[in-house]
């Protein structure tokens, strides 16, 4: 962990949970894993207060703990979970994402879980029921009474059933995940504990034997660790089937109509489980949003919307595990069929006019629509689809098709047309040099599609890195970096030759790039004396190290932004404390002077700008660290 990251985390915690928490976090980050006693000694705050602060931090998952059971003397160690601290930055975006997908009520559920850290479902539901009932009409702080239904356009949460419905949905999509005891421990400790247990089972073997069984033990440990995380992967983990008898028959009947939506209602939550927000899932979503934005800039709006829909289908299976390597989507590579996308894609998107095509092709395409060969026998269609779909083939098929089914209803035809168009957009995505999607050969109607996120993110990173280099050091530097990346290790002369520049011109650029950690040098002496004059200096590009250098810069910039906000706040402290008074809040217009109002607006704008910048850097951090 880098020093700048430590600083950022400390500031973030102070910004959100106050000074006391940030002091404890700073100590934990600085000294690493510590016991309570050590923390108290280092942070120089009374033990009672430290304990209270630790409760807060553990509740919010910012600190992990582990109690080593050592006979009678149990010792508990605390460790800071700095990635979770970083997640504090995402709170706004998380709430917004849920809001967009599931509406305000679900967003409020998520927001409360964020505030609470983790909570038992039963507690949560009772608390919700009580706190919302007495005030169905919320009063805005500015005095106006707005009934919740009026404001949101939907009915407010009134019953426990509604809340639990929201929670079930969020759980099935893995936005909320059950917390288990091992989530509160550092994973190293969990692994050690398992290892100990596994080793204990092998008791009796000699030392020599143990060495032999070491591999077996390792395997077992890995297996068990995986089993721990697998629990969550189960779609309905923590949910149980609803078991009321009356409903049984109705359900059976609906089952025959094979609608999936109905089936989801069958689940209810086990009230005793504890839930928290699954940050990794949101990281995956943010990543997909980024990919969509990229597709939009490369191809176009309509196509990007199709792409977004495709990714949304893929997201359903994503749990998201965070590993050292980055974000790993759970489960196997899943394939989405064009049909699935067609079912959920909004009808408002203009699929047809967004692709410019020659008149002949459009014509052929239209005729292809009517032939209905895709609705014919299974074998044929699978074969037809596994081939690379091109429009000429359709024209060829046309004659055959004409003899086939003419009597397609207009709805079915429309559907088909839509699917064809979606296909066209997906083909565009697949044909892009970045290969946003890969076509899956298979028997799926209209073809199936896969997305190789890891490769795409790699490309995204490369692009971003080159942009950063370009921005900071100019075009020549970018050219040099690209050449070095392409060719591997190169000395100055070779570089100059490849770059078609004079050695003298590139030297300064190389120096700066080296200084800032984008390029690295290996020295290879020609003679045993290692004279500098008789030494090759090979420049090379180490991705990992450049990433670290960049991230370090990002963290620093973010800390500075937050500090700047603090500073601005202290400049306006008088005004802000006035505006924050309970009697002034909501009545600013009457109670503040004109000057104060403009100052307040100004402060808000500047804070917004700074926070906006923070979020922008956050995007890049995620790109280089998490995705």
């Amino acid at each position, binding site marked *: 962990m880098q020093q700048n990251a430590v600083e950022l985390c400390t500031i973030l915690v102070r910004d959100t949970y106050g000074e006391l928490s940030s002091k404890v976090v700073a100590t934990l980050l600085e000294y690493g894993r510590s016991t309570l006693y050590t923390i108290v000694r280092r942070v120089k705050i009374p033990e009672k207060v430290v304990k209270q602060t630790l409760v807060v931090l553990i509740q919010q998952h910012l600190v992990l703990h582990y109690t080593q059971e050592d006979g009678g003397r*149990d010792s508990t160690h605390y460790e800071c979970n700095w990635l979770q601290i970083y997640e504090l930055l995402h709170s706004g975006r998380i709430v917004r994402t849920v809001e967009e997908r599931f509406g305000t009520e679900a967003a409020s559920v998520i927001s409360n879980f964020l505030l609470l850290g983790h909570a038992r479902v039963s*507690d949560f539901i009772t608390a919700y029921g009580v706190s919302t009932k007495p005030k169905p009409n919320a009063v805005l702080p500015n005095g106006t009474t707005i009934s919740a239904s009026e404001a949101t356009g939907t009915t407010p949460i009134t019953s426990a059933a509604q809340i639990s419905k929201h929670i079930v949905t969020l759980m099935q999509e893995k936005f909320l995940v059950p917390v288990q005891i091992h989530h509160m421990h550092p994973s190293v400790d969990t692994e050690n504990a398992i290892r100990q247990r596994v080793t204990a089972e092998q008791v009796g073997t000699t030392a020599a034997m143990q060495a032999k069984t070491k591999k077996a033990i390792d395997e077992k440990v890995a297996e068990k660790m995986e089993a721990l995380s697998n629990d969550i992967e189960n779609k309905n983990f923590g949910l149980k089937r609803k078991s009321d008898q009356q409903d049984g028959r109705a359900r059976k009947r609906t089952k025959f109509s094979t609608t999936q939506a109905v089936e989801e209602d069958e689940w209810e939550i086990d009230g005793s489980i504890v839930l928290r927000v699954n940050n990794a899932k949101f990281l995956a979503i943010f990543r997909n949003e980024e990919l969509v934005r990229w597709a939009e800039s490369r191809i176009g709006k309509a196509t990007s919307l199709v792409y977004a829909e495709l990714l949304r289908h893929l997201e359903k299976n994503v749990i998201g595990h965070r590993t050292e390597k980055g974000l790993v989507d759970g489960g196997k590579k899943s394939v989405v069929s064009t049909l699935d996308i067609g079912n959920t894609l909004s009808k408002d998107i203009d699929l047809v006019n967004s692709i410019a095509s020659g008149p002949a092709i459009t014509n052929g395409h239209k005729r292809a629509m009517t032939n209905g060969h895709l609705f014919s026998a299974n074998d044929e269609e699978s074969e037809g689809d596994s081939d690379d779909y091109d429009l000429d083939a359709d024209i060829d098929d046309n004659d055959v098709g004409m003899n086939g089914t003419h009597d397609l209803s207009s709805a079915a035809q429309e559907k088909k047309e839509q699917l064809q168009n979606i296909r066209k957009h997906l083909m565009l995505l697949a044909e892009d040099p970045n290969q946003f999607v890969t076509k899956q050969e298979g028997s799926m109607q209209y073809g199936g599609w896969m997305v190789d996120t890891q490769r795409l993110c790699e490309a995204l990173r490369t692009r971003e890195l080159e942009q950063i280099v370009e921005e900071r050091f100019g075009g020549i530097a970018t050219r040099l970096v690209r050449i070095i990346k392409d060719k591997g290790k190169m000395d100055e002369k070779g570089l100059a030759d490849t770059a078609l520049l004079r050695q003298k011109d590139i030297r300064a650029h190389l120096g700066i790039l080296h200084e800032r950690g984008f390029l690295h040098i290996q020295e290879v002496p020609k003679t045993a004396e290692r*004279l500098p004059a008789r030494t090759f200096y090979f420049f090379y590009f180490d991705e990992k190290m450049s990433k670290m250098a960049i991230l370090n810069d990002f963290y620093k910039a973010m800390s500075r932004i937050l500090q700047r906000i603090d500073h601005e706040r202290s400049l306006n402290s008088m005004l802000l404390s006035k505006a924050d008074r309970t009697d002034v809040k909501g009545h600013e217009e009457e109670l503040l002077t004109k000057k104060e109002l403009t100052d307040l607006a100004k402060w808000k704008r500047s804070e917004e700008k700074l926070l906006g910048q923070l979020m922008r850097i956050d995007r890049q951090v995620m790109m280089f660290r998490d995705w």
Partner: protein
Amino acid sequence: MAFRGGRGGFRGGRGGGSNGGPMMPREFDVKPDFGPTEQFPDYTIPFQDPLSSTERIHVSRFRDHREKVHSGPLYTVLGKRKGLEDPFEDVVTYSAKKYHRQKRKVPKLDSRPYVFEFFPVELWETMDSSYSATGDRSIVINGRKDQRKRLLISSLNTDLPNGGHHDDKSDASDEEDEEKEKEKKSVLAKLMSHKDEEDDGLGDDDEDEDKGEEEEEEDDYQDDEEGDYNAEQYFDDGDGDVDYGDDDGGGGAWYD
């Protein structure tokens, strides 16, 4: 590209002072400039692109969330140390007591139920004062149902319709409208001001390094937690805030 071990020192006496030899012909084409650097060199200040409406929503949600945490029981502000207050600015006035947001010095923990098994045993007593180290775990885990505590959720209430409202506007992506909306809503929340917050992280640590002051700080805490019953505090609490004005004094006093 410094002279790496080329000086021949490691070859003992053999090389002696004759380190000129093969080394000298090396010519440096990089000519360092030893003159003083300009104090404020020309610098093109990068300009920020205006925030998109999505970004603004994210920011506003972030602020909302932060504000909620701040008004919740977990946020702490360390007041100034005794004797360091500004005699003019920091005097506790009637209006400050009545209208200003109460500042907590320590988090208030006893307001909600906990999942005890997720916490280390040594913290249980802190989380629930009725649990003592020698007591029976099961009492706490199974919960004394009769006096169950509730999670604090109410803070969201006022915010929810507002959020939805805001949302509708922004979806229309009408920048100006949103601006107005923002303006109107602007002062609703978000603004946290701590009169006495003028330190930055580094300063904090520095202060802590100082032994002498540290003693004082400890005293500060002790003072606050000394009495469970503190008449003055009792009345102040009843006086002011609706949200967390409670009189059990379990968390100690949380303002100056």
